[in-house]
């Protein structure tokens, strides 16, 4: 399993001050639960994303803990309030040193 993977973030590029933004993030990951077995009966070790954080100009605005029951390619939809122009950073981390991150810029008018 790769240590990093593809991510897709869907959010508006501009917003009015005080507006509530919907942010949709999807990340490519098998989310191997650790409860499955191979055809020969060997247990497939757990390999999942454990943590997702979103920071808005360095301030954490949203955080998720992920567990084995999450499906593959987890999609997370959340909202935040547009306060100032700047950068939103999205970070995923998980088993076997998995880490992905991406950023989006937001212009607040």
């Amino acid at each position, binding site marked *: 399993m790769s240590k990093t993977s593809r991510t897709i973030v869907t959010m508006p590029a501009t917003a009015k001050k005080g507006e509530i933004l919907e942010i949709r993030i999807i990340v490519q990951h098998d989310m191997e639960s650790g409860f499955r077995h191979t055809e020969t009966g060997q247990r497939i070790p757990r390999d999942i994303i454990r943590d997702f954080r979103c920071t808005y100009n360095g301030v954490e605005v949203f955080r998720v803990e992920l567990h084995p029951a999450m499906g593959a*390619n987890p999609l997370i939809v959340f909202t935040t309030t547009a306060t100032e122009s700047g950068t939103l950073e999205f970070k995923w981390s998980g088993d076997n040193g998995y880490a992905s991150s991406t950023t989006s810029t937001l212009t607040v008018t």
Partner: protein
Amino acid sequence: MSRSSQTLQSNEKLQRNEMLQRNEMLQSNEMLQRNEMLQSNEMLQRNEMLQRNEMLQRNEMLQRNVISQGNVISQGNVTLRDNPRPGGSQTVLSCLLQKRLSLAILFLLAIFLPFHAPSHADPVGAERQSSYVLMSPDTKAMQDDPLLNPATFAVLDGQVLWQEIAGKKNQSCASCHGDATVSMKGVAASFPKLNAAGQLLNLTGRINQCRTEQQSATPFAFESKPLLAISAFVANQSKGMPITVERTPANEAALASGQRLFNQRMGQLNLSCAQCHAERAGQKLAGNPIPQAHPTAYPIYRLEWQAVGSLERRLRNCLVGVRAEPFAFGSTELLELELFLAWRARAMLLESPGVRP
């Protein structure tokens, strides 16, 4: 005095006996009626079930019916035993008679009542529909929006692999085919087809042929991520285009065997593809709508799989479902079935990569 009292007593006894007998008769009548009612109710229910249960063929249904009739009657006996009454032997006898009679009646009914499951023809032309229309709004939205569709990751992986140099000849797909958005337009819609050597190939088979012959690289394993990624990328170039598989003198034989396989009963459940996906498409199986089985969206991201998978994987799923030993990946049978399905869905629009529940 004593005599008259004796007579009185015996009279009383007689009357009581008479009453008891009458009671017995009434009760046994009542029981018979109840028994009859139970059985007729059961029969009605069974008839209804038979009419609904369209997955089984008539002969099987008749066999089942006879077996379940036995169950019905034993249930009737249990009901009788729950209410103990005098004159048990009489009741048991009448019950046995009743059992025989009702068995005979049910058997005759089973033979003569028109239990035909309505058998519809395979939808053709404009009656055909992609299983997309049967999906929930959420799943539709997932397929429609590439930013939500998890198969987008496979397409993007395929795009990278398209450019990747592989094999002893140091060639990438792009070395020969160039820009996939131009060269691969409509290509996926024309598969499965025969290659120059007369070998039937589906898209993944063609990709692997390129890998071994043009790139001198090891072929990708069936259902491996890179193979699914490239096929998703190539199939995506034909999105919105009609399937162009036609009956030709070259593919006629393979198409005919595909059609035969589609209509052939298989597995312990003894069902053919056609019985569900042609004759009963649009009805429900275990609460889920039965699609017409048009392969318009492959490779698909199936939520049940939590991954992208090929049509072959889906076909093998169905074969396991009817308790048949699934044909091997890349087997002639699967290829012929794929060819028949593609021909059956000819002119329908490709929507790869699809999302399916």
